[in-house]
């Protein structure tokens, strides 16, 4: 049993990190904003954490992680002010642009070895660190539901104009959630950097944020725990498929990719509210007359 745990420890760690990332995307989705900046925020957090640890190794890990969360959150504010005025796909594209600018910045910054990135980061992240961070994030998001702010966010998501005429300061709320998402992504970046020993710009590109979005949506964005479920599912799935594929003798790369794409397509077409809506769907089907 302990062996099984050790073998899959790394998998659990990535489930946790990906869950935090998926939740970071949810932070803005829950008020109706599609922000794809979080790979950039993650990079900022990862590099901040890595730089502090490498340059000032005596700083306690807690403070390193706090910095990893804080720096992106601070950057989110001046980013959000002009960008949150944009609607729908324009906001998405602007935030993709931001993410790419951050990545390119690190690719070209010699202080952090450009495209090679930083290596030999001591492994300060334990499985329990990730679990704790995830638990705190889920708890906070869960308590948001039913609160005055939570209601305001749902209102903004449904109809931003109507929300404004009810006295809701929509810009402030959207900005706050952008910063919250940035903090989560930065925290995840810091945790991952101290788990995989390295940070490199190409781990924080468009593909990464797309992964986060997909995990959030597949899990379901109607409930605060949906993205975490999606992250768990889509992190474990390729590993499970790899086992299955190996036994079937199929070339791992293309087959996994194909199945990922097919599953994603199936979920988005047939289960639009994500995996967390499965129980409700079953209940509805069960109630229908045969």
């Amino acid at each position: 049993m302990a062996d099984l745990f050790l073998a899959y420890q790394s998998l659990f760690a990535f489930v946790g990190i990906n869950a935090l990332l998926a939740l970071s995307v949810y932070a803005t989705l829950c008020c109706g904003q599609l922000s794809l900046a979080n790979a950039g925020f993650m990079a900022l957090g990862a590099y901040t954490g890595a730089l502090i640890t490498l340059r000032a190794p005596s700083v306690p890990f807690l403070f390193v992680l706090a910095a990893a969360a804080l720096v992106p959150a601070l950057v989110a504010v001046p980013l959000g002010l002009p960008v949150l005025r944009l609607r729908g796909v324009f906001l998405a594209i602007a935030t993709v642009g931001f993410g790419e600018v951050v990545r390119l910045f690190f690719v070209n910054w010699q202080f952090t070895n450009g495209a090679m990135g930083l290596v030999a980061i001591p492994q300060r992240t334990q499985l329990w660190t990730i679990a704790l961070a995830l638990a705190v994030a889920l708890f906070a998001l869960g308590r948001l539901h039913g609160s005055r702010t939570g209601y305001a966010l749902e209102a903004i998501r449904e109809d931003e104009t109507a929300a404004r005429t009810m006295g809701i300061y929509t810009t402030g709320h959207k900005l706050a959630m952008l910063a919250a998402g940035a903090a989560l992504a930065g925290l995840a970046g810091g945790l991952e950097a101290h788990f995989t020993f390295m940070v490199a710009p190409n781990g924080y590109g468009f593909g990464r944020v797309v992964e986060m979005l997909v995990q959030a949506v597949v899990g379901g964005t109607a409930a605060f725990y949906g993205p975490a479920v999606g992250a768990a599912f889509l992190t474990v799935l390729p590993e499970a498929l790899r086992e299955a594929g190996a036994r079937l003798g199929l070339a791992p790369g293309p087959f996994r990719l194909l199945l990922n794409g097919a599953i994603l397509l199936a979920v988005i077409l047939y289960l639009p509210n994500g995996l967390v809506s499965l129980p409700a769907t079953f209940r509805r089907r069960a109630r229908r007359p045969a």
Partner: protein
Amino acid sequence: MGQQVLNGIFLGSIYALFAVGYTLVFGVLDILNLAHQAVFMLAAFVALALVADAHLPLWVALPAAVLAGGLIGIVLERIAFRPLRGRSDSNISGLISSLAMATVFEAIALEIFGPDTSRFPQGTFPDRVVRLGGATASLLQLCIVGISVLLMALLTLLLGRTRLGRQIRAVAESPRAARILGVNVDRAIAFAFFLSSALGGAAGVLFGLAFNSISPDVGRGVELKGLAVIILGGMGSVPGAVMAGFALGLVEVFTVARLGSSFRDVVSFAVLFLVLIARPRGLFGRAAAREA
């Protein structure tokens, strides 16, 4: 300087050709088609296979690959976009659905052609150089520019002068109104996808010839540049995409010449950002980009 202008026009023509299809679909469906870059990639591979394995000449392989691109586009629309029509979250779900298809397309390419970079065999295109004033251009480059411009002109004519083109524009304006006026919306959308993907595929083949490098992930870099182009040109505007494509090509070439190659990609995103902050609808965009 003249050389750089030439290089900029050459690069820009490919960007423009890619972006035109991208923006066409957005104009019609209000959805960003993230599989466009995968069609770009697949068409390049189709052309490669026809030339390298079937030993067909390029002037047969190119149209065939373009046609293949268009057909893939129709399949794409049918599988990934049509079922989502009418859903309230169709922007995000369309994005993800197209992403899923892009992944599938990439997997297919990986399986058939492997992960490494492939090249067109030697002699696919005559290796000739032309002198224009003080600058030189390869015959290939001139042909690429010529073909791009020709295709974009054809598209503009099609959209402007034919019945189907008018129907596409009507659907882009308002699907409901178009339907009331008797337009077969499904067919118009399918045709728009055919055109979009055919041109995207053409861009892919030309790109593959221009840089002599085709791999399953070749579309990713172009995809993001394409975003900058359609934002600059204005979402949904074909002439905007054309002008913005050339503009970005020129800006990129000049930036590399003055500031070095590490700034090459940054300039696209700087442009993207500035446009979105200062004038979100770009040069010719119609869509209201800001909240009411």
